[in-house]
């Protein structure tokens, strides 16, 4: 099959699964998940075939002549807006991780939603399943997990989501990229609010959609401006040296930015929303209301990565926009926001007690890393971290889902529903109860912390730190280093509290390992978290450098190297001379892991107030735990005014007061006019005229009827009188008239 056909088909399989499930197989749970997982498998297969073919073509050839297929779509005045698909080295790398993570998460969802278990005792659509009571052959009642009531719907939604992500990944133009972007935004809303009967889930879904929408508006402005300035939205057409120079030299008139700069900043704001950077980060922690596969897929591996992917893709434009050194040039903005977010989110993660919240803030922080890497000028490092992060973060989320499932087993066993299965302080000692989950989680956690050499996260993080250090961005470097220390610290805190020590509650006592549909994806992803870093070992790494070529840099670098060189924007970063970044990376990673274990190894009480950090940090801890009160701030600054505007201004004053008031006034006026007309014209004149005629007739009738006496003789008298009169008249006329 030609590669371009295969490319077009990649989003079609999951989309088809979505359509079929919604229209036909909603009632049949097994068929629905087969369709969805089957579609994910087919897309995975297609993506792997394309990846291998791309490898065979080679990076330089692929970069120069990407595999493309496009159609003329919107007729414009002087041509067409083209949309299409393409594979260049960057796309191939992205397709690789997208296909694997999506497939693994689809498979995981089957087990997560308890396929194979009975329907719950009083489960309702819109609420998470609550367990079923099963009577075994001895007459003993057991509580077992129950299957999710909206099982098929979940697979339909994630099918649509996968279609959106594949569409975004294979697009060769900003328009279909944006379409995929928005499809994922919609699915994110649907999936976060999956358990729609929970008010917190509903609110979280709306919050996610609205916050990302803010970013999307600016992104759309950027796309519009780009189209206006260049007349095209296709990447190969935009990424030509002449086009980049033209955009860099055109003054946008805003804040001293060139056109490229303004477009870059606007597009980046889209990423700020989608990838949950400060200040639009507030939706991601609340998005943990959704089921864990959703958190893994959307908010770790794919959707938030889409934001970073977009800015990586647009990197030459961002670089061109930063050439004139304006204060708010895209790369500077990205460096600041990325670095700030990385540190900011890491500090919050340290004080969170919910296992998924820690991972949510960790995601925000790691995305900050990627954005900062781009700000420092290294899109290769950003891509590398994007890919490794997708693997280990998906792994961590799926692992946390496995842990939560295990805890829920415990909750069902003890029957105590007050216990929150997601609170890490209720866990402990799960390493012995759930070994596969434990070891895979450790691999993922160490990768996140950047444990040296053996984990993928180390290599990608090291590349970012080197790029910022040698690229001349010391502020970014030290910010990221401190964030790395905190990352390792809170990760080890999480692992210690969840898995090590002794179980702190009876629910943790009764936890047990989850089925193969959940543990196999964990193992697959752990493999990648372990090995994926070795494709990018830098050449001048002490001891190990040079053993394996730095395939990754060569591969992804080829995507834009020629272009940047031709445009005069290529900056070769010499990554040798100083071992400071390496030593810093080792120190913060190992140090953070050690301290995390040290501080939390002796926690024995399920009461979160016994957190050792609380004692040391005091009020600062409360500040961190409450996320610096940003939600409250936004509530006062934006939400309450918006509600006031909607409720009072537009609803009460404008709609009910003004518009309804006008309508009511018109109604009253017309009614009064009608009454007046009736009273003054209809009644006297028209009815009066009618009545008058009747009265006249009656009066005349009354007057004349006396003639009719009924007596014959009276009639004779009248007749004779008439004869006489008539005769006289005739006599007169005949005799005297002539």
């Amino acid at each position, binding site marked *: 099959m030609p590669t371009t056909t295969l490319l077009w088909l990649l989003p079609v399989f999951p989309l088809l699964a979505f359509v079929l499930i919604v229209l036909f197989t909603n009632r049949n749970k097994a068929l629905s998940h087969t369709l969805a997982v089957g579609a994910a498998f087919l897309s995975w297969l297609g993506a792997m075939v394309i990846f291998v073919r791309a490898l065979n073509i080679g990076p330089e050839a692929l970069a120069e002549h990407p595999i493309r297929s496009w159609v003329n779509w919107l007729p414009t005045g002087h041509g067409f807006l083209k949309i299409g698909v393409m594979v260049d080295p960057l796309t191939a790398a992205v397709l690789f991780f997208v296909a694997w993570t999506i497939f693994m998460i689809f498979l995981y969802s089957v087990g997560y939603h308890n396929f194979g278990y009975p329907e719950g005792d009083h489960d309702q659509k819109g609420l998470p399943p609550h367990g079923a009571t099963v009577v075994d052959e001895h007459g003993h009642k057991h509580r077992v997990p129950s299957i999710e009531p909206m099982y098929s719907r979940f697979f339909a939604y994630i099918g649509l989501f996968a279609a959106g992500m594949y569409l975004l990944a294979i697009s060769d133009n900003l328009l279909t990229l944006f379409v995929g972007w928005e499809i994922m935004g919609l699915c994110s809303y649907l999936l976060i609010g999956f358990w729609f009967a929970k008010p917190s889930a509903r609110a979280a879904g709306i919050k996610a959609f609205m916050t990302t929408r803010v970013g999307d508006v600016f992104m759309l402005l950027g796309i519009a401006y780009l189209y206006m300035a260049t007349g095209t939205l296709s990447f190969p057409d935009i990424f030509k040296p002449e086009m980049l120079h033209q955009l860099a030299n055109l003054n946008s008139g805003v804040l001293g930015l060139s056109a490229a700069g303004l477009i870059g900043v606007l597009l980046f704001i889209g990423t700020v929303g989608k990838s949950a950077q400060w200040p639009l980060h507030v939706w991601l922690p609340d998005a943990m209301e959704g089921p864990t596969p959703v958190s893994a897929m959307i908010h770790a591996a794919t959707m938030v990565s889409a934001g970073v992917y977009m800015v990586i893709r647009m990197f030459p434009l961002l670089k061109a926009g930063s050439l004139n050194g304006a204060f708010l040039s895209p790369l500077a903005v990205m460096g600041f926001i990325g670095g700030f977010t990385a540190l900011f989110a890491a500090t919050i993660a340290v004080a969170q007690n919910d296992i998924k919240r820690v991972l949510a803030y960790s995601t925000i922080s790691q995305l900050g890393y990627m954005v900062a890497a781009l700000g420092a000028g290294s899109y290769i490092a950003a891509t590398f971290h994007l890919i490794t992060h997708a693997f280990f973060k998906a792994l961590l989320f799926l692992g946390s889902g496995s842990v939560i499932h295990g805890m829920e087993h415990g909750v069902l066993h003890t029957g105590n529903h007050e216990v929150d299965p997601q609170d890490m302080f209720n866990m402990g000692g799960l390493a012995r109860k759930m070994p596969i989950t434990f070891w895979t989680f450790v691999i993922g956690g160490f990768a996140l912390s950047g444990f040296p050499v053996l984990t993928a996260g180390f290599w990608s993080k090291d590349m970012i730190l080197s790029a910022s250090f040698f690229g001349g961005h010391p502020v970014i470097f030290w910010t990221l280093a401190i964030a790395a220390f905190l990352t390792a610290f809170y990760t080890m805190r999480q692992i210690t509290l969840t898995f090590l020590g002794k179980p702190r509650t009876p629910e943790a006592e009764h936890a047990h390992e989850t089925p193969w549909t959940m543990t196999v994806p964990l193992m697959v992803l752990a493999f990648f978290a372990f090995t994926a870093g070795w494709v990018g070992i830098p050449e001048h790494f002490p001891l190990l450098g040079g053993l394996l070529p730095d395939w990754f840099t060569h591969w992804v670098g080829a995507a834009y190297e020629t272009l940047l060189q031709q445009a005069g924007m290529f900056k070769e970063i010499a990554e040798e001379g100083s071992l400071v970044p390496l030593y810093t990376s080792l120190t913060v990673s190992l140090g953070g892991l050690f301290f995390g274990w040290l501080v939390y190894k002796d926690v024995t009480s399920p009461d979160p107030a016994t957190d050792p950090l609380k004692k040391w940090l005091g009020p600062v801890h409360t500040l961190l735990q409450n996320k610096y009160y940003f939600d409250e701030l936004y509530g006062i600054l934006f939400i309450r005014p918006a509600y006031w505007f909607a409720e009072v201004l537009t609803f009460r004053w404008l709609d009910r007061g003004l518009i309804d008031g006008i309508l009511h006034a018109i109604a009253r006026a017309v009614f009064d006019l009608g009454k007046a007309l009736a009273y003054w014209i209809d009644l006297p004149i028209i009815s009066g005229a009618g009545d008058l005629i009747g009265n006249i007739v009656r009066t005349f009738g009354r007057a004349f009827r006396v003639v009719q006496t009924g*007596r014959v003789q009276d009639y004779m008298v009248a007749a004779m009188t008439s004869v006489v009169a008539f005769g006289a008249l005739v006599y007169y006329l005949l005799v005297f008239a002539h």
Partner: protein
Amino acid sequence: MIPLNWYLILAAALFALGLFGVLSRRNAVAILMGVELMLNAVNINLLAFWRYRAPVHSAGMVFAVIVFAVAAAEVAVGLALFIAVYRRFNSVAADEINLLKW
């Protein structure tokens, strides 16, 4: 010969008497008698004009005969009507038969 006018005056007088009778009598039969009188007056008038103006033509005589016949028939019919009326109203006074009014 006596002048024609005398016959005409006689006829007129008779007619007037008959008319007066019709108009003023209460009893229906008396009214019929007045009608008879009027008819006879008309006959006298007719015959007078015949005899004095065109005695040759027999048309005048014939006309008078027809008038007599008609008068007789009419009285018959009228009396029959009055008997029917009497059966209904129990009286033949003309001013009591006044149903066909407003």
